[in-house]
């Protein structure tokens, strides 16, 4: 089956097409388009999707599923990827599966020791999650100052997930044929907003 991978939780604008064998679950990347520009998510994502699908020798109508990174991500562009996935899912009639962006990065980890995935949360903080040696998430995702973290045996600080990683992280759900979970963003932070205090007086006396 043909799966479209999307992620805009990092500064990368990522779109790719991955073929997944329904029997064996083997996943193979067919084409991808990635641009590193935190301000271009809204501009480039749909063109990247069209180009990646075209490079894979297909059209959008051939897609069977979508896997989409839902953060955590510090950029307003996170929503560009998620709403693109939601609108494509609505208009193509295919399911869209949410993937924690850190899990998508973890899916590309070399086997071995347990590890931690870190991404830049800006404001001098990081998003992080801890995984066991098999890549199962044990703790997180969280947002913290780097100095507040306990040491980790191994740290993956790839800047962004690959299309293959995104699809690997969603694969169990995709192959199960179950209803996807809702596409809920992992913001981890509250919006910056303050309730107004008492009004300033305008009179001088």
């Amino acid at each position, binding site marked *: 089956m043909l799966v479209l991978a999307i992620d805009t939780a990092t500064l990368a604008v990522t779109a790719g097409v991955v073929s997944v064998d329904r029997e064996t679950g083997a996943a193979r990347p067919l084409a991808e388009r990635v641009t590193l520009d935190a301000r271009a998510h809204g501009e480039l994502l*749909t063109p990247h999707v069209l180009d990646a699908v075209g490079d894979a020798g297909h059209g*959008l109508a051939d897609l069977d599923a979508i896997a989409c990174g839902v953060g955590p991500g510090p950029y*307003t562009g996170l*929503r560009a*990827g998620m709403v693109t996935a939601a*609108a*494509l899912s*609505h208009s193509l009639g295919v399911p869209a599966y949410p993937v924690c962006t850190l899990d998508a990065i973890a899916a590309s980890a070399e086997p071995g020791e347990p590890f931690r995935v870190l991404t830049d949360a800006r404001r001098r903080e990081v998003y992080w999650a801890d995984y066991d040696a098999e890549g199962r998430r044990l703790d997180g995702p969280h947002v913290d100052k780097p100095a507040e973290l306990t040491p980790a045996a191994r740290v993956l600080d790839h800047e962004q997930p690959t299309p293959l990683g995104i699809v690997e992280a969603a694969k169990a759900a995709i192959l199960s044929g179950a209803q996807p979970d809702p596409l809920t963003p992992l913001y981890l932070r509250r919006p910056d*907003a303050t309730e107004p205090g008492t009004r300033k007086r*305008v009179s001088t006396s």
Partner: protein
Amino acid sequence: MSRIVMGIESSCDETGVGLVRLHDDGTVELLADEVASSVEQHARFGGVVPEVASRAHLEAMVPTAQRAFATAGLELSDVDAIAVTAGPGLAGALLVGVSAAKAYAAALGVPLYGVNHLAGHIAVDTLQHGPLPAPALALLVSGGHTQLLRVDDIAGKITEIGSTVDDAAGEAYDKVARLLELPYPGGPPIDKAAKNGDPTAIAFPRGMTGPRDARFDFSFSGLKTAVARWVEAAQRRGEEIPVDDVAASFQEAVADVLTAKAVRAATESGIGTLVISGGVAANSRLSSLAAERCEAAGIELRVPRPRLCTDNGAMIAALGAHVVAAGCAPSSLDFSANPALPVSTVSL
């Protein structure tokens, strides 16, 4: 053959999806107008919080589109073109609508038009009152804008002839409402309180009406300050604030300046039609005074019903339909939203 145009709006705190039918004779028929508003989430902050608005757009976008198609009894495959607000508005909010519109256009294989939100506020009138005579004058009064516009062609040529130099009219309503301890957004409660008040009780200033002031520009910040001063003085004297009289007198000052300048601009340019749109067009005094003065000056007045005046997707679909009918080129799929899109750019 008639064509179906889908419109998507997300410039501020309403997520709107509209569907219209563009008939061969150029008339545009409203089929669906679904809106999800985050206004209640902003109320306790006294104004729109951009991140809160953007989060709400993401949640509401596809469900609002689904409701629009259900209301219209249409399938997605019936859509012939999509229009989306490209600006002006909040950057993060615009991004959600623009991204969704691109995905819909790509999936449905139809042309996409990035269009101007302010032009949409004018175009929406054609859904109710039919084709707009050219030229027409538009008074756009909303939470973010107060402008006098000359509309030679709703699909292409709109020229600003005046605008506020400080607060927008709706913003003044919202600020004065806070002063009077009325809820947000302030337009409806002030309008309501004013009905029981005396509009001549307090002589509040008419901004930008001096002989040396720009003739078609507006200013509401001085008015807001004058109301604040008056209220504070009354409080200092230990008096109870006559909320109804303050509301009526404030409202009279706003409606007076807006209509006087609009009618004068129309008369001087020989324009026979005035359209008033944007959220503040819902104001009862603004429309009654405009009706009075337009009638006296022999100007046709068009005010869309309140539901069409505030932000919605139908206004974007309507503008999209006029842009399609005019044969304008679609936008390329890599355009970016422009928070400061000038009103002279009707479509990208």
